[in-house]
């Protein structure tokens, strides 16, 4: 009670200065809390997804992984660098079932004209079999409880 009595809204000009007035700053605390807590958003949580991808045993140097909703959900993905990927939690998928597509391409070795017919550029071709992307059978269940780590060992040899 003693504390409460001292902690009145500040009419600073009139009050005699007391060291204990510092405590009065604390009446601001609930407002600060409200300001911070007021920013939550509705809807299902968006989740971070991580994992490693290898192609024929080697870490996939450069590519992309997609998580596309099989039912309800928010599509998400990430680029793969050095065999690893991280889907940012702020733009991650919501819980549910997802199709997974993994893509990567590399120069085919052929030089082709660019579409203006001006310069020669390296033609790019996919190095990942279609069973991992266009005709994917990979499925995952993203859960709110996690850990949502999915590692893939891809093989170019036909199954």
């Amino acid at each position, binding site marked *: 009670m003693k504390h409460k009595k001292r902690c009145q809204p500040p009419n600073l000009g009139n009050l005699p200065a007391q060291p204990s007035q510092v405590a009065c700053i604390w009446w601001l605390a609930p407002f600060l809390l409200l300001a911070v807590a007021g920013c939550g958003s509705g809807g299902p949580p968006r989740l971070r997804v991580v994992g490693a991808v290898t192609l024929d045993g080697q870490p996939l140097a450069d590519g992309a992984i997609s998580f596309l909703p099989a039912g309800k959900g*928010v599509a998400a993905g990430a680029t793969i660098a050095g065999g690893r990927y991280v889907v940012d939690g702020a733009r991650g998928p919501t819980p549910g079932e997802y199709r997974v597509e993994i893509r990567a391409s590399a120069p085919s070795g052929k030089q082709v004209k*660019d579409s203006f017919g001006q310069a020669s550029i390296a033609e790019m071709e996919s190095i990942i079999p279609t069973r991992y992307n266009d005709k994917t059978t990979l499925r995952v269940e993203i859960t709110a409880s996690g850990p949502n780590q999915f590692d893939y060992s891809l093989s170019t040899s036909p199954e």
Partner: protein
Amino acid sequence: MAFTLVELLVVIAIIGTLVGLLLPAVQAAREAARRSSCSNNLKQLAIAALNYESAYRQFPVGVYQGVGPTGYQWPGTANYRRTSFCLFIYPFIEMQAAYDLYDKTSQAQGFFRGYLSDANSIKAKKTACSQWQCPSDREAVIDDSLWGAGTGAIKGNYGLNWGRNTWSSQGSASPFRNAYGGKPKDILDGTGKTLMMMEMLKPETLSKEYRAWLWSDECDAYALMTRVQPNSSDADRTKDFCVNEPGRLPCTIVAAGSQSVASRSMHAGGVNVSLCDGAVRFISDTVDLTTWQSLSGMADGSTVGEY
């Protein structure tokens, strides 16, 4: 009586807190103003496309690419040109001067001779077009990196509804594709239930990039897909090259034909879109994917619920 040190500290703390509360609000108000200006531009472009429709009984074609021996044959001439969407809109957004500058008659040899070397056409392509710029995004810079100094053109923030899958395989017909601009009678789902244009982001402009390039007929320039939700972390699929900007403009390189670029913006939580009846809506990043894709199809027979 003078203030004591403690009193001053308390006052400073209170003022500090209030300013701390105020600053984000001011920033939010500034972004709200930019977003409003951005959606106004989209509205202007939608009205321009509808005015074009009034004049020609169809929407402007998405792009003329690879039509005829070397490009689009301009009506009444023997000339073939590859031509981007924005040119057709220019007379309807008070850009007649730039439209007139663009050489529509010179005989293109090979691909796009005039596109690269004709001085007037290049001037037209460099003309600033404020209606195509969203103030929330970075400034438009003339990008000369692709075909050398002098060949650059402006980039912009509004692209076309190109379907739900990839450039060459739309998934379901949309009002725009190569050598095709929809007629209202083709838009069976209803003009108010079919997307016309969407927002896109300009990439870092000093590196080789097709995205957001208004004057390009490349498949990844301004053809936008509803394959994934707006602002998705899923990488855009582009051809030949791209600059990966995770969190903003992620991308990966794919073989030609399967390009797929998503709608993106700098607004918190979604993108502005226009519909074929001229309405402008704000679509959330977490819009139901089926709904989002139904909006892109013009005759997929799907009914679009609340969104």
